[in-house]
């Protein structure tokens, strides 16, 4: 079987794990030790593997680095891959998302950053251009900051060039013109923390994912609320029935099969622990109509949360599922969540994981 690479970004560095069977893992020594790693992208398009890492030093700020040799060496664009234009008066605080676009748009990579901004690269992540349409959006002054910061934390490109982004206390926005213009797409998503009926925007969407087969179908884990849209985000309906809680940060979609998604519920916004202190992944195979609780191989006692990017899937067959906790535990499933094995323990808080079957 091919080698699978799992990149684990933590509060204090990046670890790379590799496996031939996705059950037994070899863990690297830390890269960028003492530096926060909130985002990783693994780009395997075109038969080469490029690791892109958004690192952030408390002292020396954020930057994007990349490696084309699986972390043996790292390169950093001298003048910075992501830099706000001078007229914005803004500076990048944190790179939250590095997302390769579709296979037929090689070289295109999207980034989501704090302050709330979306960026597009056409050179494989060496340099990014700010989406002015979102930066200059008239809603900007009313977007808030989630507890983790004001960021475009999810960037989900679709096969037809449509891109959805999500931001905490802003909600979902969609562009169909490559980022020139963006419209809020939150109809049906609750914002219980705001008075009156749910607004056009301002929802606290924690993560979104796109269905692999029907690109107009999306899934969202909200700040209380789990939703599906069958119309490209125009409207959303609840799929939370059957889950122990509608709070959480993770939303994963199967990369090949329609209707299979994973979430990792937490009790509530005021109690951010797994229900009953037991870590569980919940999977639906019918687009959220019903859910199964999956715990085999996961710890019976776990009081740490799984953050929004600390879960991912690979593109293997069957698909691998990965979760990392704020307690520094990382688990992998080689069978779509039916059973998990431990990849790493006692790491710093896991901020993000990304996995890929290497070409």
């Amino acid at each position: 079987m091919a080698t699978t690479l799992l990149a684990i970004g933590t509060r204090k560095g990046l670890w790379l794990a590799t496996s031939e069977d996705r059950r037994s893992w070899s863990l690297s020594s830390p890269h960028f030790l003492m530096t926060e790693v909130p985002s990783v992208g693994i780009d395997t398009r075109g038969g080469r593997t490029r690791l892109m890492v958004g690192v952030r030093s408390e002292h020396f700020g954020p930057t994007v680095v990349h490696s084309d040799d699986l972390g043996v060496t790292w390169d950093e664009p001298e003048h910075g891959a992501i830099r706000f234009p001078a007229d914005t008066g803004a500076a990048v605080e944190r790179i939250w998302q590095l997302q390769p676009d579709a296979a037929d748009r090689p070289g295109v990579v999207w980034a989501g950053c704090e302050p709330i901004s979306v960026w597009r690269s056409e050179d494989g992540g060496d340099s990014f251009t700010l989406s002015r349409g979102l930066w200059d959006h008239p809603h900007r002054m009313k977007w808030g900051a989630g507890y983790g910061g004001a960021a475009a934390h999810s960037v989900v490109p679709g096969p037809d060039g449509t891109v959805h982004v999500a931001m905490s206390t802003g909600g979902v926005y969609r562009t169909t013109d490559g980022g020139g213009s963006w419209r809020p797409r939150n109809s049906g998503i609750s914002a219980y923390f705001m008075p009156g009926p749910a607004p056009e925007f301002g929802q606290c969407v924690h993560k979104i994912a796109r269905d692999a087969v029907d690109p107009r179908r999306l899934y969202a884990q909200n700040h209380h609320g789990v939703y599906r849209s069958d119309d490209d985000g125009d409207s959303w309906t609840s799929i939370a029935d059957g889950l122990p809680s509608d709070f959480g940060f993770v939303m994963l979609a199967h990369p090949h099969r329609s209707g299979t998604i994973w979430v990792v519920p937490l009790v509530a916004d005021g109690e951010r622990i797994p229900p009953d202190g037991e870590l569980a992944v919940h999977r639906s195979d019918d687009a959220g109509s019903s859910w199964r609780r999956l715990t085999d191989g996961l710890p019976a006692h776990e009081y740490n949360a799984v953050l929004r990017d600390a879960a991912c899937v690979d593109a293997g067959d069957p698909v691998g599922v990965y979760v990392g906790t704020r307690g520094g535990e990382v688990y992998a499933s080689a069978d779509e969540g039916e059973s998990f094995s431990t990849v790493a323990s006692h790491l710093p808080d896991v901020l993000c994981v990304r996995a890929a079957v290497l070409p």
Partner: protein
Amino acid sequence: MTVQVLLPRLLADCTGGRTSMALDVPAPTTVRALLDVLAAEHPVFGRRVRDETGALRRHVNVYVDGEEVRRLSGLDTPVPADAEVMVVQSVAGG
């Protein structure tokens, strides 16, 4: 005029391994102008110390002859001839 610059060891990989250097710069000069000279030669170092607006990063301190420039005139603080300018990370993190 010549200015002695001391740089943090943590950033030595951005300055060709150097943690001190004597810079010849036109007089008069300021901390900003001095950092511009350093950034032109070592762009990654420049980004580590200042963000893209030109502001000194919050947890980076610059001292001119032992005085922290935020207590003086910030990046506009004059740098006299033969001064010692030290760039150092503050105590932060956990």
